[in-house]
């Protein structure tokens, strides 16, 4: 347990050392986007900032706060998970891959989870169901992104994240990602479950592929 704690602390330092600049920039951008909804002396509602695309009398507007929140963690994490596995693991090669991977996922969720928690703290949430769904979706999306960066270039993965976010905005009916838009309802549909399962399969596939990768 002590070894695991030290490994977690080491990985955390490595990851934070890699992401802190991006974290700072995205935090400022998100804080601006979130607080544009606040009235004087009042915190905005989570459902306001994650409202998603709305159409006021035939004039749809781009939901910037929603977009920033959805891509927030992926931009912050960038290539840091890839580096943690493919570059920093050989330095502690005596640790088993399973243990190292588990620890790295905890590191990933610590950074990503802290960001989601911050969002929840910054806002009030009248719909607990929506809040929990958003937390689950954002973290699963983050894990899927992080594992994909092990196989594909992080730049390509970032591009994919942006495309998915934009598609969700403009194409009504995106399974899973629609659940992050309050305006599109919070009821979980079979398509959402299937999309979540697909993401878990992608994560498992990438995890099994690690042994085929070069650690450089």
């Amino acid at each position, binding site marked *: 347990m*002590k*070894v695991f704690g*030290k*490994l977690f602390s*080491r990985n955390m*330092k*490595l990851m934070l*050392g890699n992401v802190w600049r991006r974290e700072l920039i995205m935090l400022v951008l998100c804080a601006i986007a979130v607080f544009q909804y606040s009235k004087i002396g009042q915190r905005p509602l989570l459902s306001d900032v994650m409202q998603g695309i709305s159409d006021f009398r035939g004039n749809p507007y781009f939901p910037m706060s929603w977009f920033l929140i959805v891509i927030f963690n992926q931009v912050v994490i960038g290539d840091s998970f890839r580096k943690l596995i493919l*570059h920093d693991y*050989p*330095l*502690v*090669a*005596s*640790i088993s*891959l399973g243990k190292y991977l588990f620890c790295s996922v905890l590191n990933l969720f610590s950074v990503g989870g802290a960001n989601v928690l911050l969002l929840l703290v910054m806002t009030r949430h009248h719909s607990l169901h929506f809040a929990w769904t958003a937390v689950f979706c954002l973290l699963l999306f983050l894990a899927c992104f992080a594992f994909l960066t092990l196989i594909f270039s992080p730049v390509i993965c970032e591009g994919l994240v942006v495309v998915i976010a934009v598609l969700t905005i403009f194409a009504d009916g995106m399974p899973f990602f629609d659940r992050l838009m309050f305006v599109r309802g919070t009821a979980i549909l079979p398509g959402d479950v299937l999309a979540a399962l697909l993401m878990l399969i992608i994560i498992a596939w990438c995890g099994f592929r690690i*042994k*085929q*990768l*070069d*650690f*450089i």
Partner: protein
Amino acid sequence: MSSIVKIEHVTKKMKSLVALDDISLEISEPGIYGFVGPNGSGKSLIFKTILGFLKPDSGQVFVHGKKLRKDILFAEDTGYSMVEYAALADKTGKQNLELMDILASEKHDLDKLLRYVGLDPNNQRTYKEYSLGMKQRLLLAMAMLSDPSLLIFDEPTNALDEDGQEFLKRLVLEQRKRGKTLLISSHDKTFINDVADKIYYVSEGRIKKEAVNCDEKIDE
């Protein structure tokens, strides 16, 4: 006696370039094995393949009788010093060793090890503030921390001054005396000639020749 290191017909492509081209070698006896060759010839790639950091496109690698990427992911009971896998930049030499030691199953005398490689255990400079020679010495200490039976040093003579090279020579000869196996790559022919029991000349991703005298091979 089973092989310490055995590489069978390993080929590795890096993008379109064939970086390792049907490499085979077997090391069965402890000793010092030198690898010489021009930049980009594939010396470091051979080491990374032996360590398990690179997965060959074809062929297989065994270290201490275990097949890499099948029985084990990385080579066991093996220490290495390679600049690509450097220490943590914002930690002192001792802190870097402490971090590795905490993760190791048994504790080691870190001060003694640092003094052994010629570094001051009380030096508060971080790794990034070290001179190149000091970095090289710390990497050697990290490689030897768990006292592994197989040591792989990639270009350990780089950035070492004359005293440093003398120290390195003493170090590798002492390790050989202790029954270790050392794989060392270097541009320094004199150094390799002085210490190596066997020398492999690597060129264009192939082992062109095995010999006991570096000059003999390079003249070929």
